[in-house]
């Protein structure tokens, strides 16, 4: 998000899901789309099979989409910047870039050009393992497409260089004039249903709703007036920083609504220790999650089917959820709990319905100003939607970037923080699988998905399996510098040699015991996609 915001002035998905079905080329990188965003995966496959859309996949794993791709660039994990710089090297060297667009709508091209000069296909092959010829082919295919759309997900962002990766993909897209046009764009696919909305609503340490900075005095005054309170000008701590601050005693009380950091955070042993040091841990959730078990107070909340409200999907589309059934026992919608709690500590926050809260949101969030529950009745609306007669925005940066001119960032390749060595010879990459979601609290309590994917699997290439003497279906121990987990081996060509893959849905094989908490310095995203491990039969 930080990467896109720096390049374009907005961190959101630039274009819409439907446009994937009428673009000329899709470049998918760091997204196992058919498993993590199946309906978007469906549209990509449809575009390829039925519209003749070209598909380039850049991914270390032989994901399902590879079957549909014209070109698959299989890079070593964590070498994305090198590969993308290599593509730009070819495109500039062969004069295939959108010269007029670059001149009229962007800045920073010269620095970019100088930087990518040394990323020749041969040099990139040495770093990434991607054959020089394939890289050239992909570069030409991408550059020659009239409209090309990039989709990416956590596979690009969960690296210490996550922000760099995103800036580089933004560079590539602007270089070929693909931002601000229908069917183009740079499109981060959000993993969880309302990540976009949570960001839009200011559930971030440095901004109020609609990304209005807390450090800006005028903005702060506006919110102080609206909320009738004195507000702090000091940006707060990010999630991983909070956990560390809990360890040092700087944070004494933590209120967690609907998250399960004990499974999702990197280096779990560390997180558990820090959480136990708190004076007060409040967890509000629908189940007694691993995190809730450590809490001093657990508050039962209503599920999405038991309340009204809105979610904002990955393409900025604000959509309604509607109450279908009653919550069990005394469970309540999260908003009712927050509002009661606020009154108890002497700051009345009273609302009669979710709709009333939404009305307050639209009065303080310019990009949502034109949206009402009534308008959402039939179909969702994509922000920015500034007025009541505005139809919503299908794609961003038309004619002009949010920040004015699109900004190229000259970025050098930096290797991942932890690389394999003699003791830990394999790379572990983590992610999701089709049948489960996040920390598994919901899908693991759903019969069908659990039947289809009942236990955690470690995906291992046949060559590695042979080397380490591991048979399909056998229990294995995976050990990193931070800990060890056991899970069942699945021998598959999906994992390339030297790389194993695990998901983080299963608490009993909590892969984040292994992962490296090294953070991207800007995005503060942990490096989930690369850490060094060893593999043994259990």
């Amino acid at each position, binding site marked *: 998000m930080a990467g896109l915001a720096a390049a374009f002035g907005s961190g959101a998905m630039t274009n819409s899901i439907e446009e994937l079905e009428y673009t000329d080329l899709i470049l998918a990188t760091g997204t196992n789309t058919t498993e993590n*965003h199946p*309906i978007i995966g469906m549209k990509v496959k449809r575009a390829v099979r039925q519209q003749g859309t070209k598909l380039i996949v850049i991914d270390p794993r032989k994901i399902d989409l590879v079957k549909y791709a014209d070109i698959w660039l299989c890079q070593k994990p964590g070498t994305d910047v090198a590969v993308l710089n290599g593509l730009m090297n070819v495109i500039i060297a062969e004069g295939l870039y959108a010269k007029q667009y670059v001149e009229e709508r962007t800045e920073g091209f010269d620095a970019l050009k100088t930087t990518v000069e040394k990323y020749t296909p041969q040099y990139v092959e040495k770093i990434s393992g991607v054959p020089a010829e394939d890289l050239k082919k992909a570069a030409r295919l991408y550059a020659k497409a009239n409209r090309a759309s990039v989709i990416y997900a956590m596979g690009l962002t969960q690296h210490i260089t996550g922000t760099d990766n995103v800036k580089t993909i933004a560079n590539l897209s602007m270089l070929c004039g693909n931002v601000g046009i229908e069917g183009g764009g740079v499109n981060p696919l959000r993993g*969880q*249903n*309302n990540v976009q*909305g*949570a*960001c839009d*609503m200011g559930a*971030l*340490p440095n901004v*109020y709703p609609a990304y209005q900075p*807390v450090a800006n005095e005028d903005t702060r005054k506006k919110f102080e007036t609206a909320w009738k309170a*004195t*507000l*702090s000008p000091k940006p*707060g*701590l*990010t999630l991983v920083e909070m956990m560390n601050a809990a360890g040092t005693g*700087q*944070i*004494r*009380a933590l209120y*967690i*609504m*609907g*998250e399960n*950091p004990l499974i999702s955070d990197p280096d779990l042993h560390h997180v558990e220790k820090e959480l136990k040091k708190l004076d*007060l841990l409040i967890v509000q959730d*629908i189940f*007694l999650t691993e995190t809730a078990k450590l809490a*001093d107070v*657990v508050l039962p*909340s209503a*599920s*999405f*089917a038991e309340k009204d*409200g809105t979610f*904002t999907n990955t393409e900025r*589309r604000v959509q309604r959820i*509607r109450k279908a*059934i009653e919550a069990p*026992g*005394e469970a309540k919608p999260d*908003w009712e709990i927050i*509002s009661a709690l*606020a009154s*108890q*500590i002497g*700051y009345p926050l009273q609302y009669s319905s979710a709709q009333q809260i939404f009305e*307050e949101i639209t009065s303080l969030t310019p990009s949502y100003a034109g949206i009402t529950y009534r308008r959402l009745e039939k*179909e*969702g609306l994509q922000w920015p939607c500034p007025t009541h007669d505005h139809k919503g925005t299908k794609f961003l940066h038309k004619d002009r970037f949010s920040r004015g001119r699109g900004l190229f960032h000259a970025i050098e390749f930096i290797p991942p923080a932890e690389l394999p060595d003699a003791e830990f010879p394999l790379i572990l990459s983590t992610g999701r699988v089709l049948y489960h979601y996040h920390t598994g609290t*919901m899908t693991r309590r*759903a*019969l*069908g*998905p659990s*039947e289809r994917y009942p236990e955690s699997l470690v995906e291992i290439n046949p060559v590695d399996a042979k080397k380490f003497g591991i048979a399909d279906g056998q229990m294995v121990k995976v050990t990193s510098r931070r800990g060890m987990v056991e899970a069942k081996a699945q021998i598959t060509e999906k994992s390339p040699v030297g790389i194993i893959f695990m998901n983080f849905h299963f608490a009993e094989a909590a892969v984040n015991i292994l992962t490296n908490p090294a953070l991207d310095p800007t995005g*503060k995203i942990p490096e989930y996609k690369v850490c060094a491990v060893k593999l043994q039969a259990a």
Partner: protein
Amino acid sequence: MEKKILITIDGKEIAAKPGQTILECARDNGIFIPTLCHYSHTTNVGACRVCMVEVEKARSLVSSCCMPVSPGMVIHTDTKQVRDAQKMIVELLWSSGDHNCLTCEQNGQCELQNLIYWLKIEKPRFTIQPPGYALEDTNTMIQRDLNKCVLCGRCIRACNEIQVNEVLDFSMRGSHAKVGPAFDADYIDSSCVFCGECLQVCPTGAITYRQAKFAGRPWEMDKVKTTCTYCGVGCQMDLFVHEGKIVKVSGNREYGKPNEGSLCVKGRFGMDFISHPDRLKKPLIRHNKNEELKEASWDEAYKFIADKLTAVKKTCGADSIAGLASARCTNEENYLFQKFMRAAIGTNNVDHCARL
């Protein structure tokens, strides 16, 4: 302006769009032609011939779903010849299956049942001879009873053309034709990803929701339109509610963007967590660090939290308190949460798991 094509349907003069089929043109003009194998957004295969109409000067009846309009066509949808042929087809389908509506989950929304009723058929003229396939109940999500299959091929086209999962096809031809994954495998033993698109398009009770079996009749259920709670696509869906419980989940083609009625396995079959016995039903408090969590009332819980938060704030300042909002909660709740942290507590220590 593109040129219109002038045709006549049932005596009515109609300007059709070039490239339209007779069926599309009739539907646009409010003329009903029954169909069975036709399914929008998939190819027209002309498999069932239920949609046949009479076209003057044509040698035989034509399938309206496959036949493009041409200038001057004179079409009749409602002649004795058409109805007799339709009856014959439908009676053959009826008698070659085990269409026992008494216990069928599709009862009331079955397209075969509707056709039989619409064509006013009392009884098939042929002896009923179901093929005697075993019920496929080897997974917990989708049940298949191919004795109710009319071989329309909609499931195959949905799997290949809508979802592009490329799992289903016809195996064998002619009177032994059967739909299913390769090698006649059960879904659970195939590469099926349980999106349930085949189930959603099946016109009969051949493919049904296993867990919704005997859980409520179609007309007893309330339908609530909502947004999927799993990934960022935000699919629009219907929750089917019976006696305060969610019985099944379906896509709805009328809802349009972003998913046009399609869903994935999590959205369609992953919602039973809602009524799982593990759901938290009462607040819990741990009064002392070494004690267990104990049930409490809301008032106790609010007071416990308020006292502690106020104490921490007083001794260590507002910035010693932090909050994590949630990418799984609504916009309204996230907004309120950050307002609570910022205005009620007085800190900007608020974040969520977007980065994870």
